[in-house]
């Protein structure tokens, strides 16, 4: 629904800007979906006066005017018939934008024109394009037209939720706004002077469908003059997108938009039998509506009829047979209410949606009928020169008593947390039109105004209190703990789960350790892992320190299992390691360590069994690192003494050591009584958790063009390592998106210091299909680069 700022101002003092009001409404439950500034395009239009008018020497229909803009006299060529000397006019000077049209200096048939005199249509004020807009005598020359006309307004497009039909009019919205701003609501003062004759001699009502027509009232006014509405009313109607038609239609529309309750006016002379009948339509009854369409009605439709014919489809649309015409002299003003579901069905079936049906189908109040009737009557008497015929016909079969709701202050606190005083609650609810009529201890009892059918229970009132108090106007109530480190907690779990899925079993050892283990592993005396937390009263020498490395205990588990006939093992442990270095407490660091030994895969009839090798271990470690967010670690030759030389690697991330892996030096293994090959890894989890790693994947565009695959084989000296070679290749061109090692070959026919490498190259592009030539070029670039850096020989 559309709401006008200026119109709202009639009912409530707005000392806040249109933008502030938007915010207030949205956070008060009236969601503003769009906002439109009216009259902003008129900012450049100024008021001018035609000082002199001459005939155009070369064109019969044009005139040349001398127009004063408050400072200078401008020559302007004008073609309007009502252009005359002394007339105050709306002047668009050179440079003005009228919509997309820019006013420029032009020459019209030999006469220069420095601007334009505008019609109302050109200004977007009305549809009138018969001539230029004529401004009153008192219009101040040189001033902005928009200020003079006060056309500037802000129009809000608001979403009215289905529970609030009372907001389908300006007053309803103003009431909420007033309550939100805690300002008084100004309702229009309505007084009607009684007429002389009695309405009963003119008209009677007959309600044949009291279940569908819950209330019907009629007033009559005679001697009305149908003409244009005054400017103020047209302005209001236009501001919310309604087209002014004539005074009577405009008044019914205006009052509908004011109170959210539709009205209808009939031409009395069209009503046969001096009687208005509310009845169900006959099956297949025909009706010609105001929208120039013919409808066939059903028995479920409610019509307003006279003795001969239907004159309106109740609440939906009027008929051509009884509508207001320029000749209308006596009118019947209908203010009524209908069963919302009936209106909805009819409107839906006939596919007619009007401002009227939109409101009636939302269950508006019977009680508003009197008010809108009085208000419209008042305006009709004021604006049409009509005379009221005395009396008010009212068919109201089943008036309802007002609803009363008890509200416990203790309950308000219970639901909302906030402790609001009884006075404050009363203030909030009374501005919404609720009437406090009883108060005892904790309980206030309110009488609910009829237009608030949504308020039926205590909890509904509590909602209103919170809405007016402001949802965000309350201090934080839930205090977060933020004790748990969710990231580390769940990454540790993920790491364990991943290892289990790769065949590893978790071991748990005591944190006490044998200091001799460090000697066995030939950990140097300077190593941090030698700074042990020593127990004063250990269980024995073999449990004298808190362990600073997990591997020895896992090796102990290995030999235990080998001794029990279990030779193929994959074990891991995740635990804290302890060192103590001058500080009172120990440094406790989470590590995950593990070993693999024996046969890689379990016995399977279709496969031969492979012994575990370095790359089996490395693959798992790489996977593990990637699970916890490390995707591009470097592997350098290890500085640990316990790996077999040339078969151990330290894992580095940005030059920071985060772990190691490799084949245990057989001599070291022997010290733990192990004869099998052992592949071991160790990762410092806490160090990884300190890194700034991107754990959340983000989408990257999937190439639309199929990838192209090529192989590349060459001989290269063994001294160059794979990682360097592949990095060199991938950097050559962005279209080379992936390089995988396909094969390594040494021996037969190859010099001893060389090896043959075969790579599978993947080319893909997001923007084009890659041609053979293009790929060929990249491969050549790759070859040249490799020749230059590593002196490769192509095979």
């Amino acid at each position: 629904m559309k709401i006008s700022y200026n119109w709202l101002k009639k009912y409530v003092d707005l000392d806040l800007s249109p933008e502030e009001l938007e915010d207030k409404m949205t956070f008060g439950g009236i969601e503003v979906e769009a906002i439109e500034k009216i009259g902003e395009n008129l900012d450049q239009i100024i008021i001018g006066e035609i000082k002199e008018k001459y005939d155009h020497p070369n064109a019969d229909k044009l005139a040349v005017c001398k127009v004063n803009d408050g400072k200078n006299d401008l020559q302007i060529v004008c073609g309007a018939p009502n252009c005359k000397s002394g007339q105050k006019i709306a002047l668009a000077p050179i440079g003005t934008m009228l919509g997309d049209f820019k006013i420029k200096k032009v020459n019209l048939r030999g006469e220069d024109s420095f601007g334009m005199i505008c019609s109302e249509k050109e200004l977007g004020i009305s549809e009138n394009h018969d001539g230029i807009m004529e401004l009153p005598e008192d219009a101040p020359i040189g001033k902005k037209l928009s200020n003079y006309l006060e056309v500037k307004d802000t129009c809000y497009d608001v979403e009215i939720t289905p529970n609030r039909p009372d907001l389908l009019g300006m007053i309803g919205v103003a009431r909420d706004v007033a309550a939100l701003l805690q300002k008084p609501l100004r309702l229009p003062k309505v007084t009607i002077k009684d007429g002389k004759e009695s309405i009963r001699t003119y008209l009677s009502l007959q309600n044949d469908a009291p279940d569908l027509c819950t209330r019907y009232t009629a007033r009559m006014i005679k001697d009305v003059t149908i003409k244009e509405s005054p400017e103020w009313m047209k302005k209001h109607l236009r501001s919310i997108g309604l087209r002014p038609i004539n005074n009577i239609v405009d008044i019914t529309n205006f009052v509908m938009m004011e109170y959210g309750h539709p009205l209808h006016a009939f031409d009395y002379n069209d009503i046969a039998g001096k009687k208005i009948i509310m009845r169900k339509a006959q099956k297949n009854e025909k009706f010609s509506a105001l929208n120039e369409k013919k409808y066939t009605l059903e028995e479920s439709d409610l019509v307003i009829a006279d003795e001969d014919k239907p004159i309106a489809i109740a609440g939906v649309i009027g008929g051509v047979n009884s509508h207001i015409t320029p000749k209308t002299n006596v009118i019947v003003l209908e203010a009524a209410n209908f069963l919302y579901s009936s209106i909805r069905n009819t409107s839906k079936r006939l596919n007619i949606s009007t401002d009227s049906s939109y409101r009636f189908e939302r269950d508006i109040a019977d009680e508003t009928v009197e008010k809108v009737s009085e208000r419209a009557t008042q305006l009709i008497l004021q604006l049409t020169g009509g005379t009221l015929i005395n009396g008010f016909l009212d068919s109201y079969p089943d008036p309802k008593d007002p609803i009363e709701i008890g509200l416990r202050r203790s309950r308000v606190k219970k639901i909302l947390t906030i402790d609001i005083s009884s006075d404050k609650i009363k203030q909030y609810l009374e501005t919404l039109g609720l009437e406090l009529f009883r108060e005892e201890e904790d309980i206030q009892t309110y009488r609910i105004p009829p237009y608030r059918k949504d308020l039926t229970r205590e909890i509904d009132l509590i909602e209103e209190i919170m809405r007016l108090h402001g949802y965000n106007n309350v201090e934080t109530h839930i205090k977060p703990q933020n004790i748990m480190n969710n990231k580390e907690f769940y990454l540790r779990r993920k790491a364990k789960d991943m290892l289990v899925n790769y065949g590893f079993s978790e071991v748990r050892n005591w944190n006490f350790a044998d200091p001799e283990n460090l000697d066995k592993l030939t950990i140097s005396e300077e190593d941090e892992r030698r700074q042990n937390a020593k127990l004063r009263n250990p269980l024995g020498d073999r449990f004298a320190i808190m362990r600073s490395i997990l591997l020895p205990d896992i090796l102990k588990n290995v030999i235990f299992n080998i001794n029990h006939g279990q030779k193929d093992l994959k074990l891991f442990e995740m635990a804290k390691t302890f060192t103590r270095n001058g500080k009172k407490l120990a440094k406790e660091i989470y590590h995950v360590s593990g070993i693999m030994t024996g046969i890689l895969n379990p016995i399977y009839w279709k496969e031969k069994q492979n012994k575990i090798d370095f790359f089996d271990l490395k693959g798992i470690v790489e996977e593990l690192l990637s699970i916890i967010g490390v995707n591009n670690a470097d592997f350098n030759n290890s500085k640990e003494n316990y790996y077999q030389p040339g078969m151990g690697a330290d894992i580095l991330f940005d030059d920071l050591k985060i772990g190691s892996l490799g084949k245990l030096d057989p001599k070291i293994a022997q010290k733990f009584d192990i004869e099998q090959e052992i592949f071991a890894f160790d990762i410092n989890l806490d160090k990884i958790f300190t890194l700034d790693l991107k754990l959340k994947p983000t989408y990257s565009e999937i190439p639309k063009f199929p990838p192209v695959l090529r192989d590349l084989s060459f001989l290269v000296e063994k001294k160059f390592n794979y990682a360097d070679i592949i990095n060199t290749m991938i950097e050559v061109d962005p279209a080379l998106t992936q390089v995988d090692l396909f094969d390594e070959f040494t021996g037969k026919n190859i010099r001893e210091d060389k090896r043959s490498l075969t790579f599978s190259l993947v080319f893909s592009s997001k923007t084009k299909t890659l041609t053979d030539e293009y790929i060929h070029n990249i491969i050549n670039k790759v070859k040249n680069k490799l020749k230059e850096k590593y002196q490769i020989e192509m095979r």
Partner: protein
Amino acid sequence: MKEKLNEILIAAKEEIGKVESLHELQQVKSKYLGKKSVLNGLMRKIGTLPKAERPKFGQTVNTAKADISKLIQNKQQDIKTKEYADKLESESIDISMPGRRKEVGSLHPITKVMREIEDIFISMGFEIAEGPDVEDEAHNFDALNTPEDHPARDLSDTFYIDDDVLLRTQTSTVQIRVMENHKPPIKIISPGSCYRNENDASHSPMFHQVEALVVDEGVTFVDLRDMLKIFVKKMFGEKIDSRIRPHFFPFTEPSAEIDIVCVKCYGKGCNLCKGSGWLEMGGAGMVDPNVFDRLGIDSEKFTGYAFGLGIDRIAMLKYKIPDMRMLFENDIRFLKQF
């Protein structure tokens, strides 16, 4: 002529009948229906016949052609059906043979139980808190209201690293650290290792505990009792009820010990519960106001409860593990059972 045609038909029928492959069938097809076929040869002789006989003759030849064509088509369908059946026959396997499985490892039973406990409490809004294993006396004893001369402080009970540095004897230390750094409301559990100087079939010098701490306005003793009941049922099943009975701990008041219905006999009495029908599960109580006061928490405004449970014992009960030492032997045949 007619005889000739009949002979051809019979010969074709016979030949088609013998065909076994699609390739052979193709050859037969070109022999009888191809450009150089006998039938086409006959057709070419049509000119030698008297005019009146020609249409009839043409018709007869065409019918013969259609018959042969039909025979070939049927044969082709037969061969295809048979080939498909043969293919299926030859691909059939012994589906009882083992599938290709990846070797999967196992989590340690303590880890499994710990996770279960963590998840139950996380689902009830608790957070996980951690603290150091190597602790000072202040957190392990003083803050927990343990008197200077309490026997727990003995070397025979507690592992010491320095005069006042030790291995925590309970995870209650984490309570203290959390309350030092966070204002209420607090709702945490802290699982972790603890150490006591004892080693036998039912005691390990290193063992695992989970400690719970809830501090807020309005936390009551009944909340504690009910939370324990809920936890025990979630952990062991609806049949396992729990109870608390008065006890003494220096840092809780009132204090209680927690019993659960014996998981083996469901309360009837057995060797596991030594006939009582109940198993002891841990300690609990309302946080002693002294503990709060020492930490600067307003003990008039806030109340709280804490309880501690032995994870290893829960694991042993849950998995029916007879000897605590098995938990740390790491026999792969044991580990892979979980």
